[in-house]
């Protein structure tokens, strides 16, 4: 038994018919899984805030990273089933390989998955660091949000004593929500802006968002809060800064 160099082994390996078939299947499945990326963004709708843009970017990136991994696994098992199936209900006449593992493959697998993991992590931390910078943003308009079984209240504390049950926001202006609850836990979710934080009794939680689209969007309570949880929704009206001011003044507030 003469020793065979790694490069020879790899060369032989890649020349095998089944390896080529699996490779084609891999490409096929990778594309199939990758197609989910645009679909996801489409289902989530146009991003109504900078935060939602990041969310959709992340999901797209993760899907593209996941596609080859999922594609490889699908390809290997699909090809094995199609090509090496032992038909019928009796035990297979032939045995499979007696290989008990393959060191280089295992090492490569672990290295690649670790690498992907590091990419995910760095990406995530970078996103969060962006959020952190926004946290120090002094210009953010503060609005108090109160959850109540089963209504949301908004206090525009920087514009006098204005209180509403639907939310009004000026476009392209960062907002800082101070969120709390007078009873059980709720979760303050502005759906199309991709942001959410729980409303807890006896505590104030923070949430930042910068709306980027003018229009009406949905606020839904995302934490089961009892009988009429499903009815705990309202609208957010993102309007121009002039319209926002007009609305504030109409409701007895000041600039």
């Amino acid at each position, binding site marked *: 038994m*003469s020793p065979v160099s790694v490069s020879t082994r790899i060369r032989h390996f890649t020349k095998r018919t089944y390896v080529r078939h699996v490779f084609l299947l891999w490409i096929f499945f990778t594309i199939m899984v990758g197609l989910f990326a645009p679909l996801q963004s489409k289902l989530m709708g146009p991003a109504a805030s900078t935060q939602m843009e990041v969310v959709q970017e992340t999901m797209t990136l993760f899907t593209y990273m996941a596609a080859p991994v999922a594609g490889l696994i699908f390809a*290997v098992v699909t090809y094995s089933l199609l090509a090496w199936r032992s038909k019928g209900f009796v035990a297979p006449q032939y045995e499979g390989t*007696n290989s008990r593992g393959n060191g280089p493959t*295992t090492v490569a697998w672990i290295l690649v998955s670790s690498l992907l993991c590091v990419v995910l992590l760095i990406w995530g931390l970078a996103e969060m660091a962006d959020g952190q910078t926004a946290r120090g943003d002094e210009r953010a308009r503060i609005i108090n949000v109160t959850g109540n079984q089963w209504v949301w209240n908004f206090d525009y504390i920087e514009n006098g004593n204005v209180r509403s049950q639907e939310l009004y926001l000026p476009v392209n202006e960062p907002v800082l929500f101070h969120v709390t609850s007078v009873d059980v836990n709720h979760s303050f979710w502005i759906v199309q802006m991709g942001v959410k934080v729980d409303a807890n*009794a006896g505590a104030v939680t923070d949430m930042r968002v910068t709306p980027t689209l003018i229009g009406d969007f949905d606020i839904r309570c995302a934490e089961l809060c009892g009988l009429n949880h*499903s009815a705990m929704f309202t609208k957010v009206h993102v309007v121009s800064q002039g319209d926002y001011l007009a609305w504030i003044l109409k409701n007895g507030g000041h600039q």
Partner: protein
Amino acid sequence: MSHTAEVTTAKKRKGLMRKLNVWTGIVFGVVVAVAAHYLAKRYIPMGADETGTVLMDRVVITTMFGWTIGFMAGVGAFVGPYRWMMNRDLDHDDQMWLAGKDAGMARYFRFTTDHKVVGIQYLVITMVLFAVGGTMAMMIRTQLMRADSTFLNNTWYNTLVGMHGIIMIIATIIMVSGPFGNFVLPIMIGARDMAFPRLNALSFWLIFAAVPVLLSAPFLGGISTGWTAYAPLSTQAPAGMDAYIVTIIIFAVSSAVAGANITTTAVTMRARGMTWNRTPIFVFGTVASVGVAIPAFPMFMASQIFSGLDRTQGAAFYDAANGGSGWLYANLFWLMGHPEVYVILLPALAALLELTPVFSRSPLFSFNSAVGGIAGITGLSMLVWAHHMYASGWAPDLNGPFMLTTELISIPTGMLFLVFIGTIWRGRVWGRLPMLAVYAMLFNFLIGGLTGIYMSDVPVDYALHGSMYITAHFHYTLMGGALTGMIGATAYWFPKMTGRMLNEKIGIPAFVIMQVGFNVTFMGMFLVGLQGQQRRVAHYDKLFENGNFISTMGAYTIGFGALMLLYTVITSWRRGEVASDNPWGAKTLEWMVPTPVPLENFEVPPVVTSDPYGFGGPDAYDLEYEEDRRPSDDLETERV
């Protein structure tokens, strides 16, 4: 003279123990419950400023504990310790009687210590729980078929969501380590029984006692909280919540007992020669699972004890106005909640890892990776709980670290995937039902796992948390991954446990229908989740109507497939084709003993000289290297 008298008394006393069974348990349980109810109502004091609600909670909890203690006494759970205290420890005859020697069917209906009986009992109760929880899922989906459906009112909807959740969680936690961890695992390691046979029976009958407690919740005003039972909503909930609390306390005791038992058995009772390297992978998975459960469930128990004290004594653990915090609950809950995912998943995956070599006729690919993967998941599973709380507002600065630990889990999980596909690669894929389960699990769990990575990312989680996307994700892992694994395990060990083959002529179509229905259901749920539908709502925006309709149709398909599968299991069990001792040609020890398995499993303790994965022959392609030539074609080498 006095000697004879003693023998007669002893016989008489033994006679009482031998009259106890599940029926005496139920009767005694009801009697004690009624007595406890009456006493509690009569004597539990009520403060001047307290209302009837608090009193009712106290009475209900007392009644439920009364039932549990009464039932356990009546079924004979305390016979052993009682006799020991009386200095009349159980003799050999008693032990044999407890083990169900020559008792026929009756041994399944009493406190029997034989691990094989306990395994079958677990299997049956698991299937009953799935039937109940599954029916509830059908009701939920029926309500959600249309946006403004009035099939259920909000109270019932919330209750069913909570009941479905907790019943399925309990069922999936016990579904593999219960039936197979008890029946198969001891034989697999060459033991004659579990380390603590009486604790084994205890763990099962505690679950049995907990079932009526849990099912009483709808009649006590329901559960308005979902299965997470978040405080302070749980403090506000009607008396149905007390049923939840008591159930969890009983269940936590049961799982602690079972965990200690299985762990001890696997560590100390392996056959001679069965080093860790030769121990089947299923043993690793099960031990890891119950090992994770041992620290995790006491947290759950504590969370529910606090919840009960808040409800009945105004303890204010979770009441912010009096110094408590809802975040305390959330932390305790998820300290159990995330490890629990792996408590469910690990033994199911390990069962599939166990059968994949048998159905590929090749050794487990990289045994060490499999063990390492299981160990890695086990370790990390304790360190990720707060990824369920990214959006809760609790300690936002911890989101980064928890994102790190969560994403790290993808590495050991990936190792398990490698083991699966490596084993299948160049194997002989034998397309029986157990192997189909492996395929279905790989597909579903991959989707479940990858979507899990999305949500480990903090900003993405802000967008998706609390939406139907989450519901779809965890059903892909727990149902598509774990439950599919359990079905595979059932199909695999069915011949050994029942002595009959599972009829695959109906079984395979049923399984395929279930899988198709499953994917339709939860793809629909991913869809509405991305569109922005929140979880646990009885009514929703018209926008989500199409996706929900798809989900409901898929759910009915699952229901149909599940009924077919249940039919197959019942009929095969009763009059299926009689199985040989080792129908799959497997190499683990449970296939080396006769079917039905004799009372003490092995006549002669086995000696193990290799691991059970010695399948396969030299791969035709690897032989070529020696001659350094290309294969002329695939088919020819296939025939070597």
